[in-house]
């Protein structure tokens, strides 16, 4: 059990590289705090239940906590601590009022000490200050990328894989917690190793208690702020750990063509166990039809919106012919088979794209020249084992001459800027909204990005009129040159 204020020094001495790993990854709106900062002890966690779901290739955590203001004044700043190496991998952190789930999520920002410190905080702004003695139930959800590691880290081609997950039995908290428990849901009942805590829990029973594929650590009473009880579990997971280091997604709006063109470029890797020996094509081919569980990524299925057409799938070599497209009005399905099965630590980068009718994505605002565009922020493959994205860059290329661009993104965006993209038939270039997000998981697929922009009719005629002016000046030039008298003798 370690107290929160001692953590920075211990970790700064032992794990300087972890702090560095975060420094290279920009997180949204950082607030730099002094290294002596300790969250004011104005809250108390009355009851906390933490659920960790390990069914997919990334843990998804949901912490439901009843917080109580123990200060004498109303408070609205609730701190949520994470270790520096962990906070750089936390994605999609959302905090909501559990009793009023229809409301917008609370405003959340990342704070940090200095780069040397090991503990960083998410600062949650409660929408209304909590009165002294009052309680509020909040739900905190987030996913952690690159959190499961294969153990052993090299296996035979068709061997079963086990992965290790390390966490703390005590939920990370900057405040004293009166009562808490951690439930871990595995996707399997085959869990060869897990930490058994020698002391009994607050109910006097074994810790953890096991019920099928769910383990419960706790309940624990009166855990001080910053306390941690490391636990680990190793369980069967013979599936790929699909990890995209980068996804670039371009969404191009064409008013003239009535078209929405989408292109996605993936840099995929598989975090599963590496192959102990060389890849055996013979063994692979022999087991192909039996289809046993494997750590290799064989196919990717992209459910696309209905009405999607003209798909393509290319990589560095060129067109990849092992793809199938099933168009449909309600939903289209793009099934891709990469050139080779992607085993642990192997990489594959490729590009896919398709077109859609703009009608379903763009509406005209009743007054003025405004338009509103609603497109999925992320589409990507739908895999049972899930997929995590280290970095997602979405570019929305608007028509040339669009102005006054506003957006709402469904995921926390770390950077947004409007740049100019120049392509065919452009004169001044197209305004492009560029959004970057980190640590995104596939649960966010189909969440919509909404963009409004003004597109005056004068701007829309820029392209044909530019071409017309060019051709027109050619005609004038022909007429002028044709009228030049080049005869040697005088005009008769």
């Amino acid at each position, binding site marked *: 059990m370690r107290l929160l204020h001692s953590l920075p020094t211990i970790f700064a001495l032992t794990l300087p590289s972890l702090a560095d790993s975060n420094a290279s990854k920009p997180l949204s709106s950082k607030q730099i705090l002094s290294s002596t900062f300790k969250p004011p002890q104005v809250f108390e966690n009355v009851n906390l239940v933490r659920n960790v779901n390990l069914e997919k290739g990334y843990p998804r955590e949901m912490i439901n906590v009843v917080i109580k203001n123990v200060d004498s004044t109303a408070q609205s700043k609730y701190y949520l601590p994470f270790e520096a190496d962990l906070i750089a991998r936390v994605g999609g952190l959302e905090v909501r009022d559990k009793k009023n789930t229809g409301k917008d999520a609370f405003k959340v920002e990342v704070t940090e000490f200095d780069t040397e410190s090991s503990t960083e905080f998410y600062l949650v702004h409660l929408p209304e200050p909590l009165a002294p003695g009052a309680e509020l139930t909040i739900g905190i959800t987030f996913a952690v990328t690159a959190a499961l590691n294969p153990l052993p880290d090299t296996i035979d081609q068709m061997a079963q894989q086990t992965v290790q997950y390390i966490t703390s039995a005590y939920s990370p908290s900057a405040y004293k917690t009166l009562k808490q428990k951690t439930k871990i849901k595995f996707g399997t009942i085959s869990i060869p190793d897990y930490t058994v805590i020698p002391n009994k829990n607050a109910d006097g029973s074994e810790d953890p208690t096991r019920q099928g594929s769910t383990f419960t650590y706790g309940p624990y009473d009166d855990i001080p702020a910053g306390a941690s009880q490391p636990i680990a579990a190793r369980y069967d997971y013979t599936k790929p750990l699909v990890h995209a280091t980068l996804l670039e997604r371009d969404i191009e709006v064409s008013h003239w063509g009535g078209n929405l063109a989408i292109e996605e470029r993936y840099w995929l890797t598989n975090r599963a166990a590496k192959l102990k020996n060389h890849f055996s094509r013979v063994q692979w081919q022999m087991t192909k039809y039996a289809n046993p569980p494997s750590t290799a990524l064989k196919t990717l299925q992209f459910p696309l919106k209905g009405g999607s057409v003209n798909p393509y799938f290319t990589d560095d070599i060129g067109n990849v012919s092992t793809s199938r497209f099933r168009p449909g009005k309600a939903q289209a399905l793009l099934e891709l088979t990469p050139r080779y099965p992607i085993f642990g630590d192997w990489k594959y980068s490729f590009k896919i794209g398709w077109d859609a009718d703009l009608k379903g994505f763009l*509406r005209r605002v009743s007054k003025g020249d405004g338009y509103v565009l609603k497109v999925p922020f992320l589409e990507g493959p739908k895999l049972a084992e899930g997929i995590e994205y280290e970095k997602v860059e979405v570019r929305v290329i608007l028509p040339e001459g669009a102005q006054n661009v506003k957006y709402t993104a469904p995921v926390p965006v770390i950077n947004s800027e409007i740049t100019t993209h120049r392509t065919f038939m452009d004169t001044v270039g197209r305004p492009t909204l560029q959004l970057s997000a980190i640590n995104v998981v596939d649960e966010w697929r189909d969440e919509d990005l909404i963009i409004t922009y003004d597109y005056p009719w004068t701007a829309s005629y820029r392209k044909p009129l530019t071409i017309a002016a060019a051709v027109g000046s050619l*005609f004038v030039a022909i007429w002028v040159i044709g009228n030049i008298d080049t005869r040697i003798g005088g005009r008769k």
Partner: protein
Amino acid sequence: MSDLQQVWDAAKASPFSPTFSKDSQFLVGAVLLTIAFVLSGVFALNRSLATLPVLAIPASLAFGFGAVYMICAVGVNV
């Protein structure tokens, strides 16, 4: 619910529809380019100050719009 979601919902009645649908872009582009070609040919045969506005300007406008539609029809959505 965000403000922009409300803007989206309010605009439900007016989905975007292009002047010519995707299916007719090739036809429109081809017709306009043919007009441009014919008018340019006639202009090339009688070049004068009078035929400039009558033939050359309509030809260049037809070429401008026709080119945009033809480029869209062949898959480069400008």
